[in-house]
């Protein structure tokens, strides 16, 4: 798994490539990276999952932990460009009820400004 970060309009974007799974993860996990941005005062996080082929239970745990940390600090965490396969599983497991998943990242970026 490879994570690159960039910032646009006060939103920190995580471009993730590969598989978010335990066996593919480094010691600095997605959640840790999100937390370090939260500690620096960033409150808007966008996970671009365009390059993500698969997520295991560890990956789901990382995304949920990132969501909880962001939400608890009054911030917003959104996902964009998730594959249809993953979206289907997210729907069935009700994750779509909690996570704000947008089809494209541009729309997701704009939606951070809306209440």
């Amino acid at each position, binding site marked *: 798994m490879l994570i690159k970060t960039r910032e646009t309009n006060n939103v920190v974007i995580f471009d993730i490539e590969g598989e978010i799974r335990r066996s593919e993860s480094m010691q*600095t996990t997605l*959640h840790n990276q999100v937390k370090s941005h939260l500690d620096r*005062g960033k409150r808007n996080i966008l996970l671009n999952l365009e390059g993500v082929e698969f997520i*295991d239970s560890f990956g789901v745990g990382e995304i949920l932990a990132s969501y909880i940390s962001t*939400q*608890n600090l*009054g911030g917003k965490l959104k996902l964009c460009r998730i594959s249809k*396969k993953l979206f289907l599983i997210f729907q*069935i497991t009700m*994750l779509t009820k909690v996570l704000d998943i947008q089809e494209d990242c541009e729309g997701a970026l704009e939606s951070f400004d809306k209440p």
Partner: protein
Amino acid sequence: MANGRLERFLNRFADVRGHEAHAALYLSGFFFLITFTFYIIKPVKESFLIGFASAASWPYADLATALLIGFVVALNTRLLNRLPRRTYISATILFFIGSLLVFWYAFDVHQKSLVSTPVADSSGGIFFVWLPLAIFKAGTIPVFVFSFWTDVFIALSVTQFWIAVNDVFDPYQGKRLVGLFVTGGLFGGIAGSSLAALMVVAKLISAGNLLLLCPVLLVFALMMVNLVYAEQKQLRENAGAEVDPVQAGARVGYWESFLAVKRSRYLLLLAATLASAMVAGSLINFQFKFVVKSVFADTNDRTFFVSVFFLGILVLSTVFHLATTGRILRSFGIRWALLVAPALLLVGSLSVFLVSLGGLLAWVLIVRGGDKLFDNTISQSVRELLYIPVPADIKYKAKIFIDMFVNKFATGLGAGLYWGLYRLSGFDYKGDVAILREIGVLVIVFLVLWIGLTRAAYAEYPAVLKKDLRRITIDGDKAVQQHVDVDLTRDVFDALQSRERSTTLYLMNVFDLVRKNNLTPELKEVLGIKQDEFRARSMDRLFDAGGEVFFHGLDEAIADKDLASEIDLIFLLPSYQEIMVKRLAEDAGSASEVDRMDAAKLIGLMVRSPDSLRFLERFLQDPSPEVVAYALRSAAVHQRVEHVPLILRQLGNPLTVLEAQGTLTNYGPGIEDQLRSVLGDQSEALEVRRAIPVVLARFGTQRSADILLDELTRRRGDLEQEVIDALYKLRADRPEVRFREKQVRPELLYLIEKSYEICLSASGVAAGGGAAVLTSEAKAALDLNVRRIFDLMTLLHPPEDIVKAYQNILKGTRRSGDYSLSLLDDLLDRELKALLFPLIEDLPFEERVLRMKKAVRLK
């Protein structure tokens, strides 16, 4: 005057901010002129009433007001419905100017009427001369009309003033500026009564001609109110707002304003509180009149005494207000400030039973003076503060009814009670002391009622305040809990992942899932279809795709209860145990990660045996985090104490920490002491220690809370965030758990102190020539500290209130932010408020620093 200078000047009287200085000046000027006018008119009215009416007919003036004020209210509301606010207030002032001239003319004509009088000379001859005599052709009727008009004037003017304040300022601004307005009113009263007294004593002008000064003052009042609304219009236009929402929606009738009060228990209590205070005040006023009438037989002496009395009261009120009102409110809050007036008046009224005839004048001066003093100062301030939580549109309607109808009706009720007592008890045949004591009994009844109603209204105050405060966001973990079964989701993803790695692991996962959960058909489909067949665009198309399933009929088979029972029986077979232990031994030594995962998972399904637990111990130390994750879940099933140290070690690994926390949570509160010793042991890995507070929070026991709080009080910064998060979660989930204030409070103050250090060090940079703003890092640290302060405050106060206040201060509207500050003002003690408010109020950085320095000095 430039905004800065004006602000500095006004700050002597109240906490005025730059952008509101002009409006605050105009409105306090408006109130000054209104009370100036009123206190010129009032001695004239009193002088005429005492001079031309008997003690038995005094109540008629108040009764007439009580009976007729309703019609004035109806007319007032009708005009409100038809005119914009600015036009309405201007027109009312013009009406008062015109009617004052009419009264002056009427009184002037009466006093200078020439009467043809027969005169006999020394020789006995009779001739007629024209003598100028002060007579009233219509008896006392013009006096009663004027008395009623005076009541209408003050009721309408004061109501309009507060409506204008509500139009211009939000509740929190109003609360800060109320001191300035009350000061303006008091100075106006002093100016008016001083002028009246001087004129009477120096005989410079007749009482009737005093009325000619009033229209001039009201013209200035008209200018002030128009300046305020013109400025507001300009500000709205600059901001792009079309119409002020309060004014746009302010089309109400008299009936509607009555209904607004009737519908709200809180407003009914406020109305009843005011009514009981007014009845008591009215009765005290009759006691006062009785004593004054018996002591001062001469009309001029009496008129001068009344003028000086009002002047003295106003001077004392000003001193009391400037020196005490704000201090009482800041130190004791509204709760106790509400009781000051009725409690002290009760003491004073009870003392009537101890006073002799010679001490009556002094006694009545103290009681009547006290009543007026409190009414002008603390009672007025507190009454307005009690309206703060009422939504602006309802407040506007309710104030019309309460200030203009209830107020006068209560005064009339007091007059009616006096009238009844006068006749029933035969005051004509009783001594002054006996009369005052009989009235005093009624006064005491209404003062006790006032105290009771005040307490009842205050009990509702926080609830009304909170009604308009909503949570903006819910906590992340609560949102997840509400919608997602996290364990099920994890198992589903594991099952899907395992399908591509091992058939055995996949089937074990599916079996485990089905046994623990009632799976939806969609989930069964997803689990039963090959991964490479997730190709459809939608659910319908997916399930109609006719793809090849992993095992035909799997979903029916795994849902079969007989199958589940058979598998359980197999697990119990001794021969199975024997075979599987051998298999576990092989898998444990296998180089294949998948074999070890299979084995680690299987142990969780098997019946516990020493051998299986031994292998579990080995898998908990496996180099593969995938194997460890399965082993941790199996450990959660068997819950062996000897495994706890191994599980704790996995807290330090970011790849297994979530599973390890889940497993420890499954163990339950029995392992609290083990967790405590690791938490407090600084030789343990920091990551391990940081992961423990979450587990303790999930236990949610008093013991867990005590462990966390003990850790917090050690002030080891490395765990602060995790411990406070855990305490907050524990408090939110388990309201029955208690936290010792003597432990929490010092930590709160410590966090506030740290926040102050951040700001003050930045201001030190500014003093050295740097920028007077926080760097982004310092701001992030400050925000985090403030968040922690609020999280800790939930341990001592209702968590929902604190969270709402925090969220609305941070992200709410200006109004909801102000409500939040009012709520905190009500909840927190004096010291905490004084230290916390400079941190959370919406202030420019430099002003924030100044307030912090002041708060530190005061502390």
